């Protein structure tokens, strides 16, 4: 009798474990169309193209070796190599070029042309995956060789290009699809990579908001004041800014609240649009008032691709309610039968 009871208890436990696993699998592998991927690809195409164009005049100056450029590529590369010699850097390409009797300047020019071309190809959706791989690799080389002159936007670009490179390209709006008549991609693979991007953004904002909350300057508005008058990102005159001195503390607290609560309210159907709109407005404001255009653009692209594009057959944008993951009944392939 007691063995029967313990057996049914074990069965119940197994069932609940199985249901939990299915729900988790359903959350990880929802069915998605490739519209978000189109937005992501085109957005990153624009980002990479602008990145290459805006750095055109300083490209050699930033990444040339010592004595030719600003600080020389070698210091940044030495610091990177200390962490791991396997991290890609321009030094690799230049060493290959040297064996082929190609000079450093030519290699850097080829790398720049490669990056620009990859950006344009991504924009068109032509050779989407090779273009994504080239864009990720050359940008990573630039970010690592110029590690000393890199900033936050570079990390986000690397992350976005990394996810794009692994996503199920090409999408149906790309030239690749039109030319090669590629088959539609697995909706669950599309859903998985979108989910990865969504969860990643939740980490970004939660940690960003939490860290800001720990600084007294975000409570009294002084951090907003300092960030807006800080050269060279001081696009607004302090004389104008001082008129809003009573608004700054409120804005500072709102930014922290918006970021720290993002992982909750971006998933709820009722609040998703509001949070997304506020986050996009915040990034647009960062771009316009501080001149951090690349940072603003990459964050807007990631947010729109992750949460701004409606899923097929839904009026509300993207994703599914957290408590009842769509796919809990769809993740059959992944969940045990």
């Amino acid at each position, binding site marked *: 009798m007691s063995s029967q009871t313990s057996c049914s208890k074990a069965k119940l436990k197994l069932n609940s474990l199985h249901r939990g696993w299915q729900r988790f699998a359903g959350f990880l592998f929802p069915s998605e169309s490739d519209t978000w991927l189109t937005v992501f690809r085109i957005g990153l195409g624009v980002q990479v193209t602008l990145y290459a164009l805006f750095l055109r005049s300083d490209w050699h*100056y930033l990444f040339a070796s010592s004595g030719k450029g600003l600080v020389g590529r070698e210091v940044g590369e030495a610091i990177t190599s200390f962490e791991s010699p396997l991290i890609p850097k321009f030094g690799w390409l230049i060493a290959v070029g040297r064996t082929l009797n190609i000079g450093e300047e030519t290699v850097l020019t080829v790398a720049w042309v490669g990056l620009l071309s990859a950006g344009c190809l991504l924009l068109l959706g032509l050779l989407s995956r090779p273009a994504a791989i080239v864009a990720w690799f050359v940008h990573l080389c630039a970010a690592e060789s110029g590690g000393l002159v890199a900033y936050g936007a570079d*990390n986000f670009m690397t992350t976005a290009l990394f996810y794009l490179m692994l996503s199920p390209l090409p999408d149906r709006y790309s030239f690749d699809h039109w030319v090669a008549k590629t088959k539609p991609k697995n909706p669950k693979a599309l859903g998985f990579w979108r989910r990865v991007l969504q969860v990643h953004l939740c980490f970004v904002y939660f940690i960003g908001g939490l860290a800001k909350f720990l600084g007294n300057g975000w409570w009294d508005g002084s951090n907003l004041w300092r960030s807006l008058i800080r050269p060279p990102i001081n696009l607004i005159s302090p004389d104008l800014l001082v008129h809003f001195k009573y608004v700054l503390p409120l804005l500072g607290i709102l930014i922290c609240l918006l970021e720290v609560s993002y992982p909750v309210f971006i998933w709820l159907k009722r609040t998703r649009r509001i949070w997304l709109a506020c986050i996009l407005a915040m990034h647009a404001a960062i771009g316009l008032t501080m001149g951090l255009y690349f940072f603003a653009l990459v964050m807007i692209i990631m947010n729109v691709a992750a949460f701004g594009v409606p899923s097929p057959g839904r009026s509300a944008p993207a994703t599914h309610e957290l408590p009842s993951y769509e796919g809990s009944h769809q993740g059959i392939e992944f969940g045990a039968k």
Partner: protein
Amino acid sequence: MHFFLLTAVCFAGVFWLIAQGSTILPSASDKYARKAELVATWCLGKEARASNPLRRGIATYLHAVGIQAGYSFFAPNVPSHHRLMLELFHDDGRVEYESPHVHGKAAALRLDSLLDRLPEERYESVREALVKMLAFSVWREHPDVKKVRATFEAVHLPSITEFEQGEVETLEPIFSFDFSLRGEEQQ
């Protein structure tokens, strides 16, 4: 595994901020934060030898994904701004003042990012070399310059109240180097 590493990187950054005592949390939390930071960095393999393959593997992956640094931008507070002023002593006795510069605005942000990194402890060993290279980048444009004095300064921005009272930014020299064509001497 991907999100485990991301969690470790993010929390290592937050615990580091707390351990530095630069947050609003009471100082009693510093030592716990230091311990928690150690746990997070241990997960990233950073407590292992620099040549450890696991440590290198994790570092390579983090850099490849762009998640090697946390997301605590402008946190807990906005850091100080820094500048490098170069005094150029010409052969004919003239003295000119210049700063390292780039052509485009996108690259100017990067140069500024480099200057703000220089005071960090991790760059102490390469600081002089970097300042020398920055000075040399300007020197190349002025071949008749005999000597360059590079002064690295922290720029303290006024608060709103100070600004309303007419105060402007103040400069605090942190270090300076003299470079000449024959050799370099540090001050």
